């Protein structure tokens, strides 16, 4: 039995609180708050992407269609709210951190590394927002129908698994860049 709503509505107040806190942290330029949002958000974003791309995705790809549908009906709604929240937490606070530390200045030793990270994030955004998330939402809508079309779910789940792997690889690049930036 799929959930009544596409996304878990009960999570929305929590996300609202997180986003309001993010605005407050940026507005007050709190170093601790900015670091908390950037490091916690970035760590979770990278970790979840790697875990989904290299652990959950391949397992999901080998499950039978009913098992895959059962798991996805509960897993994908959570991903649909968690991931965009983590991404906006990380990027909005990250821009502020980079400015405060002077890392965006052309003369900074980290400038080129940050540009590289922007490009990696840009590629991930096009893949995730153009393919992965639309596939995710479409599968959720299909599974709510009285008779879901297994062929459609199969095609879109394959797309989800492949793109999750691509974003996982891009996250390895993010880890390399960010650890380099933090240690120069």
């Amino acid at each position, binding site marked *: 039995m799929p959930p009544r709503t596409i996304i878990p509505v009960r999570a929305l107040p929590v996300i609202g609180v997180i986003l309001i806190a*993010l*605005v407050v942290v*940026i507005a007050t330029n709190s170093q601790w708050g900015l670091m908390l949002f950037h490091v916690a958000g970035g760590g979770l974003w990278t970790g979840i992407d790697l875990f989904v791309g290299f652990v959950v995705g391949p397992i999901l790809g080998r499950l039978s269609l009913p098992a895959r549908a059962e798991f996805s009906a509960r897993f994908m709604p959570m991903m649909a709210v968690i991931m965009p929240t983590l991404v906006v937490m990380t990027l*909005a606070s990250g821009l*502020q951190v980079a400015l405060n530390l002077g890392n*965006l200045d052309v003369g900074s030793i980290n400038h080129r590394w940050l540009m590289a990270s*922007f490009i990696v994030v840009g590629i991930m955004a096009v893949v995730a927002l153009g393919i992965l998330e639309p596939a995710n*939402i*479409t599968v959720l809508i299909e599974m709510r129908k009285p008779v879901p079309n297994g062929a459609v779910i199969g095609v879109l789940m394959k797309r989800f698994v492949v793109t999750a792997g691509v974003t996982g690889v891009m996250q390895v690049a993010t880890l390399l860049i960010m650890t380099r930036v933090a240690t120069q």
Partner: protein
Amino acid sequence: MSAPAAHAGPGGPPNLAILTRPFPPTVPIVMASLASVLIGGIWLASFVPRKPPLGVPTVLGALGVVLLVVGLLLLTRVPWVSKTPFPVVWRWAFLAYLVIAALIWFAFFHNHTRGATLALVTVMLAVFALDVPTLIAATVARYTDTDA
């Protein structure tokens, strides 16, 4: 373009014709629009806190707008899209991505981005907030069985 007639009713085999029926290239075109505004945004962010040259991001922003409009116009030529959940999905996704775009806009505004640069950032974020719902809703429409 019309929906395929080869539909299996409830309880029958899955309707495989959905996977091969003609559909306009809205998703790749709007993905290109998204890529344009993201590249433009990266270009602008690479100059923060200095004043960036606006030629390249203006062209990329305009390209993003044109590609989005073309993608949406192509969708209007498919009559059965109106029978899909496209409008509902688009509205809710737009609400979500409007909030995200507003937060990113605030980050730029807070860092003293003003004038023509802020206007360009605003246009690019508006395109971003329209691109993502279009990508999600078009994919949903593409795989909706309108005969069911």
